[in-house]
């Protein structure tokens, strides 16, 4: 079942095997105390203490002030924008990610390997670089913006631009979660379905799609979670207009620059809780995906 793809996919989408192939009690090898101890200490220093710091800061804010901070219309607008844009980008990535994975797995054409490798570009390219490159392309004078401007479509410096940036940074997730499943699936199941008289569309909707669903949802959730917190690529393309193209992370930044630490903390806390819920959902989805693949 496991091929190379499983063990060295990009971060954020690798499925841990919860019970490794050879289940043995492994407490015989040396170094358990040392490595686990170091892991826990380092985890506490870099991740847990900072998290505790922000939670503590959030608790210290008076409830009234906290509520005022997060119910401010500008904040609510930023939440709505972040949420909807991330959702839209994740949806686009789900559709085109499935298409890309399908084409890369099932068809052989010149340049396929190169494209396959390129899919990971958004993981490796700094977000600021992506931001300025996309802005240049989609600005009214850019390669694509120029074509769309006469039609009255504005992408850069408009909400649409945010969706474009978030689509870019979330692109690899769906492809990389669906790809290994599709490779495992092989063509045999389809051929069986076809030999039983199913049409091509029936085969897809009844045989292939249900198999892909867990990984598709996992990829969607990962892309959504990543898009929700994204900052670097969006600030360049969005134009950062309050109430219109201002995403939540940017608003945190603005509050910080105004030394409004309480406001920044309140906005961040809401986003953190949402992120953790998403992480939980992703964990459950991955468990489902692993189970359905066994």
């Amino acid at each position, binding site marked *: 079942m496991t091929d190379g793809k499983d063990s060295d996919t990009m971060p954020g989408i690798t499925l841990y095997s919860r019970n490794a192939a050879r289940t*043995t*009690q492994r*407490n*015989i090898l040396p170094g358990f105390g040392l490595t686990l101890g170091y892991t826990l200490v380092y985890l506490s220093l870099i991740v847990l203490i900072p998290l505790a710091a922000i939670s503590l800061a959030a608790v210290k804010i008076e409830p009234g002030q906290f509520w005022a901070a997060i119910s401010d219309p500008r904040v609510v607008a930023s939440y709505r924008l972040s949420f909807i844009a991330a959702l839209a980008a994740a949806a686009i990535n789900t559709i085109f990610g499935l298409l890309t994975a399908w084409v890369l797995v099932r068809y052989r054409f010149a340049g396929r390997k190169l494209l396959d490798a390129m899919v990971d570009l958004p993981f490796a390219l700094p977000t600021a670089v992506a931001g300025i490159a996309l802005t240049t392309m989609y600005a009214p004078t850019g390669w694509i913006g120029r074509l769309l401007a006469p039609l009255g479509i504005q992408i850069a410096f408009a909400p649409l631009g945010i969706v474009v940036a978030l689509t870019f940074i979330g692109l690899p997730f769906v492809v990389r979660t669906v790809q290994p499943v599709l490779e495992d699936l092989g063509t045999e199941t389809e051929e069986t379905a076809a030999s039983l008289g199913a049409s091509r569309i029936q085969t897809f909707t009844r045989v292939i799609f249900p198999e892909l669903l867990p990984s598709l949802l996992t990829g969607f959730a990962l892309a959504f979670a990543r898009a929700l917190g994204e900052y670097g690529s969006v600030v360049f393309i969005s134009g950062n207009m309050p109430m219109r193209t201002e995403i939540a992370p940017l608003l945190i930044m603005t509050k910080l620059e105004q030394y409004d630490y309480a406001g920044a903390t309140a906005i961040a806390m809401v986003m953190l809780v949402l992120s953790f819920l998403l992480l939980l959902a992703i964990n459950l989805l991955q468990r489902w995906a692993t189970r359905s693949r066994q």
Partner: protein
Amino acid sequence: MSIQVNNISKTFGSFAALKNVSLTVNDGELVALLGPSGCGKTTLLRIIAGLEFPDPASGPVLFHTDDVSRQDARRRRVGFVFQHYSLFRHMNIFDNVAFGLRVRPRNVRPNKAEIKHRVESLLNLVQLERHAALYPWQLSGGQRQRVALARALAVEPKILLLDEPFGALDAKVRKELRHWLRRLHDEMAITSVFVTHDQEEALELADRVAVLNTGRIEQVGTPEEVYDHPANPFVFNFLGNVNIFHCRDKEARQQVGLAQAAAATTGEKVAAAYVRPHDIEISRAADSETIPARVVHIAAAGPVAKIQLARLDTREMVHAEITRQKYRQLNLNTGESVYIKLQNPRYFSEDYVI
């Protein structure tokens, strides 16, 4: 060096893999741990090796007279051959075999020339001297198995432990390696324990066989002992094919051999007679101890003729194996009615659950 384990228990979570197991392996002996998968045989082997530690309440593991219970695998100096060989995939065959010598502390480490000499003579022993520069993936399963053995022997262990040594090989290679291993053991006279689920392998190769089932040792003995005098139905059943004749009442007892059945079953205790297929005698003449049966199927190809019969009274199936000569004498045909007689039946009470 002898091995002695006393009252070993091992639980994984809520699963008891071993329940109070005791076993002694004498110096220079070759012992098989035989049993179905999940019976605890591999766990016992790994506990002897120090790759697994028993539950705290267990008794000690002794090598000769030394208590090694608290030593880990590194200090026990046993040779262990893993089921999947576990060769180091990034090292060639020479380096694999040399590993155990090279990781020794500097003051007891042989010098380069000695290591080379030792590894070469071991590769000679396992007939792989020309493969020294190859990598594990370039070898066949049987060759890998021999490398694993050479690697384990390189550290000159006093005890050799093998986990399903032929498990992953095909039937023919298996047989060859089996004979080869026996010869090797006889030459080196190193105390050895191997795990197997194949009764033929255990009976053919081992000096003594320990039969395990659900975490307990059911019987320990020479191959003849466990085969001819199984301690219970499980051992009887596991070591070969068997026909079971129920003797619930007097009438049934009469049918399977009145005198013996009466002697074997005290009072009205329910019993069953266990008979191996080659102990079913087929004849054309009836007497007081025969049961009428009809021939259902005949498979006469091979060293023995396998006859499937149906008892005329209970319609139960009976499997018999007779020599080809006997088969020709009887001139059996499918559908014919004959008489069967039970030789060497063993009686066990029926409440025994296999």
